[in-house]
């Protein structure tokens, strides 16, 4: 059953309440002082549309069934790091094509809708190349691809036939243009790539990579960057998986004289940085959304544990020290959600504030969610420190999300730039 047709059994709650389980009842309005604007929806609205609620609730139910804790654990040990079965089921829901235009085989939904789905992915700790495919495939092509390229690749991304990733960071571990040193040299009818990409998510299972490469050196690091669509099976490419705290699949990808045809340039030669930035800011908010979902679930598990765990003859959640931790957690989670929503909205609307909002969101989500998972561990005590118990899965993955696309310090610096302090 496709999510759009699904009659979810969850109560649809079109609001943005703060609660461990968000489907709690609605408090009625007081009624005397003016209530909601009659008959009209205000635009000052941090809640979701009906369709978004449907997507969110369906995704939650789907992922609880298809991506339970055991699946997450299995994929930690799996060589590929994802399940083809789940991949196909997600494709049946049209998720890989959610933001792909309808005429390219997708659902043509908006970026905000996708971000809402990603929050649910974070909640379920969905492993695998879904986000890399969206970022390195769909978003990269939508932002910068030619009509030809879109026609060629987007339908296969939408259908789940192709797996992509974005190959951007290198051993310099930088997110700015100066960090891009992988050389792409014009030769004959194409380019030859030499260099190393590092921390590339799920590269080992991809069909294609969008590779950010340097085609020109010079004073201005931004000028001279070109984006290439690279067939992952090309001669000269080798993958080495890294062992990470999140047990996700990040790779070293070595390029030795890898030939790429000219037709595979995304956008224009030397002019790729602007496209990259647009991809990056969408990817950054997606990472925030994943972190928000992750933190929300960590928080919910922790609150439930605080209610259930008895010490000194009472639930530990009746102790102020625990209560106040949970209060700080919900403040952090809610703050993270709304600063992320704002960034998603600004990016979707391409407002003037969009870059600033993205930097603020990632700086804050990176650290707020770290505080949340740290509290989650402390509330759990010894049991949370065991590998067997679920909560540590969230703790470990939070760190990957915190680091991806730049940590708090990185984005704070950019906020400071924008503030002109």
């Amino acid at each position, binding site marked *: 059953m496709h999510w759009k047709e699904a009659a979810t059994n969850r109560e649809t709650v079109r609001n943005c309440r703060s609660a*461990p389980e968000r489907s709690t009842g609605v408090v009625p309005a007081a009624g005397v*002082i003016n209530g909601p604007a009659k008959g009209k929806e205000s*635009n*000052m609205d941090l809640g979701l549309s009906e369709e978004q609620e449907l997507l969110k609730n369906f995704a939650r139910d789907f992922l609880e069934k298809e991506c339970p804790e055991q699946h997450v654990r299995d994929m930690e040990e799996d060589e590929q790091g994802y399940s083809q079965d789940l991949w196909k089921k997600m494709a049946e829901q049209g998720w890989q094509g959610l933001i792909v235009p309808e005429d390219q085989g997708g659902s043509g939904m908006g970026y905000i809708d996708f971000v809402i789905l990603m929050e649910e992915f974070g909640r379920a700790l969905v492993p695998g190349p879904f986000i890399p495919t969206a970022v390195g495939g769909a978003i990269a092509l939508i932002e910068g691809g030619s009509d030809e390229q879109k026609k060629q690749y987007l339908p296969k991304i939408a259908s789940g036939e192709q797996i992509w990733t974005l190959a951007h960071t290198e051993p310099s571990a930088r997110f700015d243009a100066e960090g891009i040193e992988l050389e792409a040299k014009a030769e004959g009818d194409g380019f030859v790539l030499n260099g190393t990409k590092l921390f590339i998510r799920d590269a080992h299972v991809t069909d294609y990579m969008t590779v950010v490469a340097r085609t020109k050196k010079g004073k201005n690091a931004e000028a001279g960057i070109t984006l290439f669509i690279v067939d992952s099976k090309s001669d000269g490419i080798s993958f080495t998986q890294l062992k990470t705290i999140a047990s996700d699949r990040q790779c070293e990808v070595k390029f030795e004289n890898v030939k790429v045809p000219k037709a595979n340039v995304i956008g224009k030669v030397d002019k790729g940085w602007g496209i990259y930035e647009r991809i990056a800011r969408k990817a950054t908010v997606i990472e925030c959304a994943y972190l928000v979902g992750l933190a929300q679930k960590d928080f919910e598990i922790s609150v439930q544990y605080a209610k259930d765990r008895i010490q000194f003859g009472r639930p530990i959640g009746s102790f102020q020290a625990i*209560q106040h931790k949970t209060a700080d957690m919900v403040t952090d989670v809610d*703050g993270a959600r709304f600063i992320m929503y704002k960034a998603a909205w600004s990016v979707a609307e391409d407002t003037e504030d969009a870059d600033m909002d993205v930097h*603020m969101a990632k700086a*804050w989500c990176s650290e707020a969610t770290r505080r949340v998972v740290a509290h989650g561990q402390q509330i759990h005590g010894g049991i949370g420190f065991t590998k067997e118990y679920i909560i540590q899965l969230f703790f470990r993955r939070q760190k990957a999300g915190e680091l991806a696309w730049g940590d708090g310090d990185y984005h*704070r610096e950019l906020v400071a730039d924008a503030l002109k302090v």
Partner: protein
Amino acid sequence: MDFKDSPEEAAFRAEVREFLKQELADDVRQPDESVLGVGTGEDPKDMEWLKKLATRGWVAPAWPKEYGGAGLPVTLQFVYNEEMARARAPRPNFLAIGLIGPAIMVHGSEEQKQEHLSGILSGDTYWAQGFSEPGSGSDLASLQTRAVEDGDDFVINGQKIWTSGAHRSDRMLVLARTDPDAPRHKGISCFVLDMHAPGVSVQPLTNMADLHSFNEVFFDNVRVPKKNLIGELNRGWYTALTTLAFERSSIVNAISLQQLLGEVVEATRPYRKGGASALVRHELADRAIETHVAVMLSYRVASLQAKGLIPIQEASITKLYASELGQRIARTAMSLAGLYGQLGPDSPYAPLLGRIERMYRIQVGATLAGGTSEIQRSIIAQRGLGLPRG
């Protein structure tokens, strides 16, 4: 999800802005170092401002038109509050307009509404709120002020504290115990008390920022006519809850913080220590991000209200976050100003003419007034997250 104004909101915002531009003189604007700050009403300029607001019906924008308010929907109230805060417009008689009037609308009789609401709108009656007592701060329900029936009156004896503006008030919404034998929440009633009545005395309290904002109020056999009982006898606790809920939901704080931070950024430019630029940059960036979060949390409260929901834990979260952020901003400002930060108001050497120093003191009260941070966290955990009481 939408963060931009609807056409109606945009039009209203433009209208408010234009009004403020035309009518709000610079010397009427409030200093913004105090997020506790509400108009004092003592300043004749504040009174004139109230009259100006009255010409547009904007004294009480949230009140229904039938009571003389502007009858604005929640979203336009929000726009109004946002713009008023941005312009640092004074909000004289804020307690009466924001808390007490609405409580009377919810719990008062038709006669009481007739008697009390118009005076609030015209600015003729100033109000104080008599809830806290020396022994009853966080634990408000333990209050000891007594009201005893005597003929057509209640006779009130006891003491209130932290009563903002009591020294200039005409009326007080007061909580008193009417049934000492009942469970603590069920023997309290709520009255309108004439501050000019015999037996009322007001003792000013100076706060640690050298400002007189609070008072102690003593009641010595003060007679209150029975018609001044608001709501049912012995149900006053629930009337009080209505007004307390209002205290925790405001965009005004977040906007004040935003403005304050902007001023701090500018005013401390000359005092920034050259050697530590990345530190300063990151500290200011952090405060800017946190202020943005505070604004988002306020938006969330408004967003819920616009859907007809009552924010409880969400309002506590917003209050808690904004008040602690206010202290961080004050600390940051102090830190950026270096040795100059310690200089008090009106010192020629002081940045922002001593407002940083003043703010650093005043902000101490932000995490206490309207429910301490500890109380907020317990409300969030118990009422919001369903954790059991200790």
